[in-house]
């Protein structure tokens, strides 16, 4: 038994027969190993997963109130494979990563707006906090642990940008009380069509789901736009669809959204740049151009014109 690799063990877990079966490895990272076996997908969650939190998050994903928003698991209960918590899902068709221009920006925005408007009392509880700030903290830890490959100045700029954030946004203090149900780690890999191939879009990956500031779920696209990765037209498609669907995280339609988005977008810029630097260092390569754009955004965040300079002692 223990000779079996984790992916093979996951495939056996996902297979209707419960026996070893052919599988496709969809992801294999330290925060999750995902295996597809026919119409089923098994995910081994990270070793250090908060297991009580995951159990609630799985029950939330199974809640009727969210059946049109989140992909519903095949089993609401968390299983175990080789000591890892494991969840079981139906297979859904993802966005083609080679065609980001076909990304479903409007459906994504509408799903987030719906998620953010679900009354918490209709969900199984206690709903844990959204883990967005914890991921900023993890990215900064990875940056700190990365070998120095001549990117000290860039790393310094990312840390300086991180210091413009309040402690809670860096995961160093509890987040302000209140909020709405958030996804916590929204990007274009978090959407699938179900049932395949032409079903409606659903959000996947509940690991970071929880109560928090809805701006956090808009902040990654906002950061991509602010850094210059995504053009204004694409950004407005996303933003307008979210607001038109009643999403509460970006102010009313027609207003400047940045008073609502700025903090979370800075946090996601820091997170993305920190991970990019850590990854480039580990792979002993230079930053790719899009990674450079995120680091450049951190440089600008760190050197924002003074809002109010501390006066000399008086």
């Amino acid at each position, binding site marked *: 038994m223990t000779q079996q690799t984790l992916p093979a063990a996951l495939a056996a877990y996902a297979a209707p027969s419960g026996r070893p079966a052919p599988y496709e490895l969809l992801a294999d990272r330290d925060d999750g190993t995902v295996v597809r076996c026919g119409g089923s997908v098994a995910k081994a969650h990270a070793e250090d997963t908060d297991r009580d939190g995951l159990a609630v998050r799985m029950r939330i994903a199974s809640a009727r109130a969210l059946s049109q928003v989140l992909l519903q698991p095949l089993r609401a209960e968390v299983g175990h494979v080789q000591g890892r918590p494991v969840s079981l899902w139906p297979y859904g068709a993802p966005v083609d990563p080679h065609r980001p221009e076909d990304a479903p920006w409007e459906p994504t925005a509408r799903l987030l707006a719906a998620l953010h408007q679900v009354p918490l009392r209709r969900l199984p509880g206690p709903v844990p906090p959204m883990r967005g700030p914890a991921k900023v903290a993890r990215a900064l830890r990875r940056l700190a642990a990365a070998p120095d490959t001549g990117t000290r100045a860039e790393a310094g700029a990312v840390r300086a940008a991180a210091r413009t954030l309040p402690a809670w946004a860096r995961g160093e203090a509890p987040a302000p009380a209140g909020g709405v149900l958030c996804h916590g780690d929204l990007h*274009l890999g978090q959407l699938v069509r179900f049932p395949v191939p032409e079903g409606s879009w659903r959000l996947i990956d509940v690991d970071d789901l929880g109560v928090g500031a809805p701006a956090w779920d808009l902040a990654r696209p906002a950061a991509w736009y602010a850094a210059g990765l*995504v*053009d204004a*037209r694409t950004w407005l498609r996303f933003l307008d669809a979210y607001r038109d669907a009643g999403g509460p995280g970006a102010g009313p339609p027609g207003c400047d959204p940045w008073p609502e988005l700025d903090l979370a977008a800075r946090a996601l810029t820091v997170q993305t740049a920190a991970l990019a630097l850590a990854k480039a260092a580990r792979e002993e390569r230079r930053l790719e151009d899009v990674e450079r754009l995120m680091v450049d955004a951190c440089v600008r965040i760190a050197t924002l014109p003074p809002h109010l*300079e501390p006066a000399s002692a008086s």
Partner: protein
Amino acid sequence: MQCPKCHAMMHTYNRNGVQIEQCSGCRGIFLDYGELEALTRLESQYTAQYGQVPPPAAPPAPYPGQHAPAPAWGAPQHGHGHGHGHGHGHHGHHGHHKGGFGRMLFSS
């Protein structure tokens, strides 16, 4: 003290003898009783002494306009008068970096 809006810490600054609390998170400002009047007084003293304060820079185009608002730290193409940087689609700016672009949009 804590910011009533975002709950980050507020720091005290001294502007021309007026104590101002500014939030380290959202950069909101809290003024004590009488401080706004004190600032207004300083402004009129300045005007009397040096003439009219120059008007602030033109505000960004109102939304929804030709370009969407962007934060102060946004990429230079978001700056005023560079609206042509927008609307190219992904291919315009980053078509030749498509691999990295795709990866970044699809990963945590």
